[in-house]
């Protein structure tokens, strides 16, 4: 059974301009011990998904669907149970460790904070455990007496990782854990996370705009666009040969080292993601899609099997697979109806 299972998650924010949908029906599954990545540019809803997992969104957010954490629905949990699940069931490594640490407390006390909150530990035992955790993330235990401003950016992120491990969670959500770090430290931190997650058998959900980081760390990869997963599959396959044009554009945005041609003609993606208040008709990616067809403005595609263990939400994938005759429902109807009739999660086995 999957440790985390997100089913048809929707999140919308109530604003003065009305309801703004930030997440529009996301399905995700994280098997025990596996590492899943969510990629996408700013504003695609990936951080909203991360915060929704522990119900940390502001009061103006309305959530729908189901978030099953170890079989229990987070969205219907009572407040006390929710507090118990937070950090002990799933913990978060936040982006920007500088601001996620309280400047007026010593880091040892801050690592001990969740231990004291969740376990009946004495302060001395919690302090001892905080020292052990610091050693685990490669900092000497005596640094527990330091204040956050005395540490470097990489060290602070190590402290955040130690804190995430404090209560022995079975899932760690890493929300852009390396954004503010330089490339060398970024690699160190990623290796550390990878190693710790492997050693403890923890599942991980990593969120980043950097597809190469995710492809390097994760087993499976989901690409989000405008509040939906548009492509999903094994990490290296999604990175190298994306089936959705957006996934392909993200993957192609990285220059190939040693290939001067890729450096001279960077292939960016023009335009911005759509305004959630004014979604385009049909495919949300249509207006920016380099290979858009007239039918894209009419059809809103959902995830469709796109090869073994993969799925993509694009009408072109749909017709390709149909041409191949794989898993086609009764033919003859218009593509839009077929898409709507098709069960969404087929072709995705965790």
């Amino acid at each position, binding site marked *: 059974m999957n440790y985390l299972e997100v089913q048809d998650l929707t999140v919308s924010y109530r604003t003065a301009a009305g309801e703004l949908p930030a997440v529009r029906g996301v399905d995700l599954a994280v098997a025990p011990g596996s590492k899943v990545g969510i990629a996408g540019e700013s504003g695609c809803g990936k951080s909203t998904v991360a915060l929704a997992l522990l119900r940390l969104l502001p009061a103006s957010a309305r959530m729908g669907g189901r978030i099953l954490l170890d079989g229990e629905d987070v969205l219907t949990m009572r407040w006390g149970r929710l*507090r118990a699940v937070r950090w002990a069931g799933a913990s978060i490594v936040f982006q920007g460790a500088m601001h*996620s640490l309280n400047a007026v407390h010593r880091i040892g006390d801050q690592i001990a904070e969740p231990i004291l909150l969740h376990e009946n530990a004495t302060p001395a035992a919690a302090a001892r455990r905080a020292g052990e955790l610091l050693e685990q993330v490669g900092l000497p235990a005596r640094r527990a007496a330091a204040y956050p401003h005395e540490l470097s950016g990489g060290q602070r992120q190590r402290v955040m990782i130690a804190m995430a491990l404090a209560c022995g969670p079975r899932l760690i959500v890493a929300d852009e854990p390396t954004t503010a770090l330089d490339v060398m430290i970024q690699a160190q931190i990623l290796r550390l996370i990878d190693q710790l997650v492997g050693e403890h058998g923890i599942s991980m959900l990593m969120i980043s705009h950097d597809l190469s980081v995710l492809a390097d760390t994760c087993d499976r990869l989901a690409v989000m666009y405008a509040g939906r997963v548009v492509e999903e599959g094994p990490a290296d396959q999604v990175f190298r040969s994306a089936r959705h044009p957006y996934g392909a554009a993200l993957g192609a945005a990285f220059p190939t080292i040693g290939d001067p041609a890729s450096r001279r003609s960077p292939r960016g993606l023009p335009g911005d993601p759509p305004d959630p208040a004014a979604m385009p008709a049909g495919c949300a990616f249509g207006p920016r899609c380099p290979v858009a067809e007239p039918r894209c403005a009419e059809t809103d595609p959902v995830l469709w099997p796109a090869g073994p263990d993969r799925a993509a939400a694009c009408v072109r994938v749909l017709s390709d697979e149909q041409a191949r005759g794989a898993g086609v429902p009764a033919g003859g109807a218009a593509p839009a109806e077929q898409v709507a009739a098709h069960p969404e999660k087929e072709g995705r086995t965790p």
Partner: protein
Amino acid sequence: MSAVEPPPAAAGGTGAGSEPPPGAGGPGPRALARQRRRRAAAAFWRAYAANPAGVAGLAGLLLFILVALSAPLFVDTADLSVTRAPGSPYQPPSAEYPLGTDNFGRSVLDLVVWGSRVSLTVGFLATLVSVALGALIGVVAGHFGGWTGTVLMRVTDWFLVLPTLVLAIALATVLDRSVFTVILAIGITAWPTTARLVRAQTLAVEARPYIERARALGGGHWHIMGRHVLPNVMPLVLAQTTLMVASSIIAESTLAFLGLGDPTTISWGGILQDARNAGAVSSGVWWYLLPPGLAIALVALAFTLCGRALEGVLNPRLRERR
């Protein structure tokens, strides 16, 4: 062989080098922390001392507190009795009575010195009550927001627009006459400004990511308010406290002058009321009126100067503007 002189440093050459004993060579972590705290305190003092008005206020304040604390050493309480006063009534200032005597023949200097005890005590305690109440309501209103915050803020606004003195007079009239009543009356009427200030700062602190982290790791409301918001609001509360003491002392004097204090205790406001009742104003006995009035003004000034200087140190934006 080294049993005669076993200093820790001489025990082993290399071993001692890796872990130096405290005091020798590199200082231990605790000594380091102490040093750091000393340095921080020194830096704080330098910033404070750069404000001459603040230093003057602090000096005046310390003088008043010293006098109030040591008053029993040079004031005999028997001399303050109305029936067995040492001098004759309305003596102008002389060598024996530097500030003259009152209508009973008591030394005005003794009265003012003794009165500082009550005035300062009430000033401090009333401030404590009002600041504690204001900080609690401000943090709670800022943390919960929504309905709770709105209701609390409307209550605060209601207290804010109500004339403080009128409310304090009403409270002091209804309750029993005692120093405790005066403290309560001032404390209950003076908290709204603190509450507004603290709420604004709470909103700023609550927007920081470590509050989200604290929520994510399962912290409850009290945990977040007590451990994360309060320490970050504290400097502001501290500066507000010093400013508040001045107005509390003035409020206490006002209540005592209006005859709402405890008639059995001597306070600056009480002396002023006695002087007015005795007709000191019309008979030109200036030495009976001036000393307590000046004492009130000076203490209030000293506290305000300290508060402003403290605010300047704690709020870098104010420092730059100077």
